């Protein structure tokens, strides 16, 4: 023994994963989706990802410096927000717009509430919602994947909604469709999701209840009028649902802390997606479904507090 003994309060041993490690884990889980996006959308995708990450990291550092708080880039959360934002943007988006979205994601999505852990809404989605409100045309212009020249197209969901034309399941799985950078390739997203569940970096309750609700509701609609409504398989694999259910709705900061609450949150998201996709003016509703349920999170927490051990009255 050298020097003084260390004194600290129990427990003296802790489980391995730290918050920065969990953030890194989620970033690793997104690598398949990043590879798919660069494969399909080439340099545009690569540059947009770089610009968005630069935007969030830079803004977080500046904001913390200005507030004379310790700069906590090492926790990886700003990097993750930048990456997630890029993955929900269209590949044709001008880079400056992506950067602006990244700045807004950090400023109004996160730091204004007090930084990591204090925000109410998912920061990446706040960034996207801001861009959607400011530049609606840019945010709904899509190109065909896999080509070096931009050939415009529509997303599978808008083709379904406005033309009733169905994209093949294989294309949806592989991502060979129009859409945001990271949302098109369902296989890549599911791989990442499995990694997160195995590593216990994510609770399975939200994705299960979210996807499960979408499946059940779309199945009911499909059975009522097969010609008019899309199949459950199409609903699950198209648009931003996989990305949203696996990587956005599961953001711990903005989702409920109780197990029961997480089911309610996921079911709520699922109901909203189906409502917006089926009867709303927009072809896609994943972003708004999650942001709306984020707003309900404090309320859900309040009403799902578990009864403490021995607290149930006989």
């Amino acid at each position, binding site marked *: *023994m*050298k020097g*003084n*003994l*260390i*004194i*600290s*309060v*129990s*427990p*003296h*041993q*802790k*489980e391995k*994963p*730290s*918050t*920065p*490690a*969990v953030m890194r884990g989620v970033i690793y889980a997104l690598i398949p989706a990043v590879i798919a996006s660069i494969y399909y959308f080439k340099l545009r995708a690569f540059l947009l990802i770089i610009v968005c990450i630069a935007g969030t990291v830079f803004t977080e550092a500046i904001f913390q410096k200005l507030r004379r708080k310790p700069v*906590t880039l090492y*926790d990886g*959360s700003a990097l993750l927000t930048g990456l997630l934002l890029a993955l929900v943007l269209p590949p044709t988006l001008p880079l400056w717009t992506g950067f602006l979205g990244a700045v807004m994601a950090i400023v109004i999505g996160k730091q204004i509430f007090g*930084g*990591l*852990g*204090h925000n109410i809404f998912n920061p990446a989605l706040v960034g996207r919602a801001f861009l959607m409100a400011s530049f609606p045309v840019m945010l709904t212009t899509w190109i065909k994947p896999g080509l070096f020249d931009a050939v415009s197209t529509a997303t599978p969901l808008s083709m379904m909604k406005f033309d009733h034309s169905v994209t093949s399941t294989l294309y949806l799985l592989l991502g060979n469709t129009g859409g945001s950078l990271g949302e098109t390739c369902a296989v890549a997203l599911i791989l990442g999701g499995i990694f997160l569940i195995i590593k216990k970096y994510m*609770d399975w309750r939200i994705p299960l209840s979210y996807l499960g609700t979408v499946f059940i509701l779309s199945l009911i609609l499909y059975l009522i009028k097969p010609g008019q409504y899309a199949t459950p398989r199409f609903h699950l694999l198209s648009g931003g649902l996989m990305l949203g259910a696996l990587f956005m709705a599961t953001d*711990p*900061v903005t989702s*409920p*802390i*109780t*197990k029961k609450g997480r089911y309610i949150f996921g079911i709520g998201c699922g109901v909203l997606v189906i409502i917006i996709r089926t009867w709303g003016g927009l072809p896609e509703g994943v972003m708004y479904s999650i942001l709306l349920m984020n707003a309900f999170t404090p309320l859900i927490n309040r009403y799902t*507090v*578990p*009864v*403490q*051990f*021995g*607290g*149930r009255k006989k």
Partner: protein
Amino acid sequence: MRLKSFKQGIHPGYYKGLSENGPIKKCPSPKKVIIPLSQHTGAPCKPLVERKDKVERGQKIGEADAFITSPVHSSITGTVKSIDKQPHPVSGSFDAVIIERDESIEEKEWEKGVIDLEKISADEVRKKVREAGIVGLGGAAFPASVKISPPKEKPIDTIILNGCECEPYLTADHRIMLEYTDDCILGLKVIMKTVGAKKGIVGIEANKMDAFKLFLEKTKDEGNIDVELLEVKYPEGAEKMLIKALLSREVPAGGLPMDVGVVVHNVGTAVSIVEAVRDNKPLIERVVTVTGKGVNNPGNFMVAIGTPFSDVIEAAGGLKDNAVKVIMGGPLMGIAQSGLDVPVVKGTSGILVLTADETDIEEEVNCIRCARCVDHCPMYLIPTEFVKFARGEAWERMDSVNIMDCIECGSCAFVCPSKIPIVQYIKLGKLALRNLKSKKG
């Protein structure tokens, strides 16, 4: 077979192999002992001896006039050197009697008597257990005589013998179950007789199969004693969790096991009760696990109460150069010590010496509300609320989130990825709340 268990909880690394294989060794009788006048839950003792008094091994040297208390005895034969404030492993410092050993006198030993279960009376058992200064040896050190004196309106139907030892590293109870099997079972019968319980259950975690099989074999002719295997999960050995796992009964919030007709005793306590009732031997020594990578020869030792930690660690081959932390108890609920001059007390189940790579002292970051603490709390509490209210010093609101139900098992802080010292906030909150309540009267 599906093992019995409770909901939530954690699966830490156990490291019991360091110390569980060898038999219990005797720690050499120390040159001096420090006997704190409070080693239990309840009223502290007043000294019965003065400076320069000669005392004998087993002589009562402190007691108090209260229901919830426990007398203390000298663990060696010698002379009282002083009675003053001394380091204490739980409360930092406390009044203690220091006794220097007289090496010319042979230490008193107790001969093994016999117990006639038919003849002994409940009052006799209670009196002997109280006089012997027996407290719960699992760590909480609650006076055993109080536990076996339930009020008439709370009939007890089941006695549980707690052989879970769910804290990592510790193996004292495991060795006791292997080496004092008959006394454990006899102790269970004595307790059952005393409180009039019809049924006895021995609960053993599945990482001690040898002990489980031994108990099964020895109780095969006992119709009213069951031996049950429990899932290896922390905190399986916490009273409330254990009762839930074995009997599916939930001790009401703020209540005691006796509220659901149960009394739980640690296996080591049962052995001490037998020694008190059968041999009239007071609680002056106990089995202590000395372990961790920071100690040279980990093992279990029979240690005289009051022996300084330094003597016990010496018996285990001494500290290694890379030892950085000495803990009384296990890694999840144990108390870190600032020096090795503290004495072994009745509640010292282990002395754990950790090296730098065994102890986690990572930097704290913001709570990300991942709710791992909520998902693992065995009491179904919301630890994030405790942290929030403690930081805001909103002590009264901590009551509304049931902070007093927390058993401080540390599962929440164990799983927290942001490394927030949740237990520290909880201890702070409970203390502040108690002070607030006592001020209000």
